[in-house]
């Protein structure tokens, strides 16, 4: 405050005083004139004694329009009367301080526009009394930046992805709620922790490598890897890492966006397994079709009539099997994709059972008894219901015993149909996944099924609002289908 000693006693409103503060009048004036903030000096009556060039630019008034005016002309009208009181208060205890600490302050331009400001007040003792200097800084840009920053912070906090920052050597600096959820560490625990702690032991080296790439200023996008949670469980994650830089452009750390892709990976694996199973199921009929085609083409003349007849029968069976598999696969995929339209209607269960038996007659040696009482009406899609019944019948022919019985009874708004046989039942290890696609028992390979008949049955019965379940019935198998009545 070297200039304070040089203050002579001007009367702010006197022409001499104005001259004293004129930019060209003294080094002191030139200094204020060049200040980046708007500087306003106010006399003990609260009238403007001096403004610098930045004040004119900021508020849009010419200097002459301001000098001698109450300082309140630079405030929005709603603050003016209160301000007069504050000013009186300040005069009784003048010291250098920011104005309105903790409050949002606004200036008002000549045009009436308001803008956010930051104001520092300092007393300026003169022989005439204490003047007041106000340095006013336009906060418009700063406020805008703060708003942007706060918006970004909200986005980061509310993101499901883990978002965190770390130093160039991998020390964690920030940690959002997504990161807390994904990794199981609270922000207080994670901040200060080396990022390598998030990698399982066999991937510690990988975090070093990633940090090295970042240090070179490169961005890493959607890097799929494995990370370990606080509780030790592993998650599949996709990482996007970007270097953070200081104002000179030097890399000082990095930000990480981590997405948990465990579920996606699981679904991909399930899909791959499904496709592999479907291909496998198709291979067996195709091996027979291709083999017999080749044999008939190369050896027809040498073959006995019986060999030819057996070959043609096998061709037909395996052709039908491949066909059924493809049809079932499509049905299953359409059901899973919700693309099947059902047209519901009342169906007599006994009639449907007899119709299914006609469509899927038992092979030689198997005997089917239907003891479903007439008049049990169920509310289903008739065509799809036939498909369910023929599938469970065919399943019993393939894997069950020679005596197959379908019975039925109704109670409490639902009808139960039971299909039992006197075979060896479903192998116990298969029961838990019996209704999953391609679940097969140790006795199933030779039987020529598609591997998805029961999976399809369950999807359909559930679409009807019913339930299909399996239970062991003595040595044999028993499938129960419960359906809503009409």
């Amino acid at each position, binding site marked *: 405050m070297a200039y304070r000693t040089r203050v002579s006693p001007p009367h702010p409103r006197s022409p001499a005083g104005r001259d004293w503060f004129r930019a060209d009048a003294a080094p002191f004036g030139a200094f204020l004139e060049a200040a980046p903030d708007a500087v306003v000096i106010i006399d003990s009556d609260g009238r403007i004694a001096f403004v610098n060039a930045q004040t004119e630019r900021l508020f849009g008034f010419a200097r002459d329009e301001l000098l001698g005016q109450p300082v309140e002309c630079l405030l929005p009208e709603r603050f003016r009367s209160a301000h007069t009181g504050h000013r009186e208060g300040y005069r009784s205890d003048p010291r250098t301080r920011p104005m309105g600490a903790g409050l949002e302050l606004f200036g008002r331009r000549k045009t009436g526009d308001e803008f956010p400001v930051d104001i520092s007040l300092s007393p300026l003792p003169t022989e005439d009394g204490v003047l007041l200097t106000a340095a006013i800084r336009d906060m418009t840009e700063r406020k805008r930046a703060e708003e942007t920053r706060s918006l970004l912070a909200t986005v980061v906090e509310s993101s499901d992805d883990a978002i965190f920052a770390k130093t160039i050597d991998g020390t964690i600096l920030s940690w959002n709620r997504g990161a807390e959820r994904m990794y199981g560490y609270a922000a207080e625990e994670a901040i200060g922790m080396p990022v390598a702690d998030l990698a399982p032991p066999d991937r510690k080296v990988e975090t070093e490598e990633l940090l090295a790439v970042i240090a070179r200023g490169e961005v890493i996008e959607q890097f799929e890897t494995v990370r370990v949670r606080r509780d030790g469980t592993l998650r599949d994650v996709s990482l996007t890492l970007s270097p953070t830089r200081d104002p000179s452009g030097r890399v000082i750390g990095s930000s990480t966006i981590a997405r948990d892709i465990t579920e996606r990976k699981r679904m991909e694996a399930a899909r791959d397994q499904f496709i592999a199973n479907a291909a496998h199921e198709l291979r067996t009929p195709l091996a027979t079709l291709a083999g017999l085609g080749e044999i008939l083409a*190369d050896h027809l003349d040498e073959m006995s009539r019986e060999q030819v007849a057996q070959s043609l029968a096998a061709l037909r069976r395996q052709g039908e099997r491949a066909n059924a598999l493809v049809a079932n696969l499509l049905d299953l995929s359409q059901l899973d994709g919700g693309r099947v339209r059902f047209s519901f209607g009342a169906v007599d269960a006994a009639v449907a059972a007899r119709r299914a038996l006609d469509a899927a007659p038992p092979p030689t040696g198997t005997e089917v008894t239907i003891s479903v009482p007439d008049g049990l009406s169920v509310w289903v899609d008739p065509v799809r219901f036939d498909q369910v019944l023929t599938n469970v019948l065919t399943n019993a022919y393939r894997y069950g015993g020679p005596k197959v019985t379908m019975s039925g009874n109704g109670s409490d708004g639902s009808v139960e149909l039971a299909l039992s046989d006197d075979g060896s039942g479903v192998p116990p290890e298969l029961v838990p996944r019996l209704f999953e696609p391609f679940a097969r028992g140790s006795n199933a*390979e030779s039987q020529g099924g598609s591997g998805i008949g029961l999976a399809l049955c369950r999807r359909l019965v559930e679409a009807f609002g019913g339930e299909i379940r399996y239970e062991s019935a003595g040595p044999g198998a028993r499938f129960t289908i419960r359906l809503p009545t009409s």
Partner: protein
Amino acid sequence: MSATVLVVEDEVDLLFTIALSLELNGYRVVKAASGEEAVDMVEKERPDAVVLDIRLPGIDGWEVLNRLRQRGQFPATPVVLLSAQVDAATAARAVELGCHAHLAKPFSTSELSGVLRDLLR
């Protein structure tokens, strides 16, 4: 006298197809539809070669190989493995167990005959 080949395959129609193709190529064929049956047939029939599916109900093709090896009949008797796919792991295991050939389904019946002809030469 024609060579005897044991075909082990649980899919009835595929067993018929392989057997028919080998018969038409001049082999005497004996059939087994499970691993247990295969082990018995090797004892009883002393085949000159075995065509063995890996995926079998009960004891699978690998176990059949193990048991044949324990009884000293293998690797003296050539074995052609049949599997749904020939991936690296399956192939490595087949080699390790001393299999002579390995075909993936669906395979050509003439290819199988060719492989057997080479093995029995």
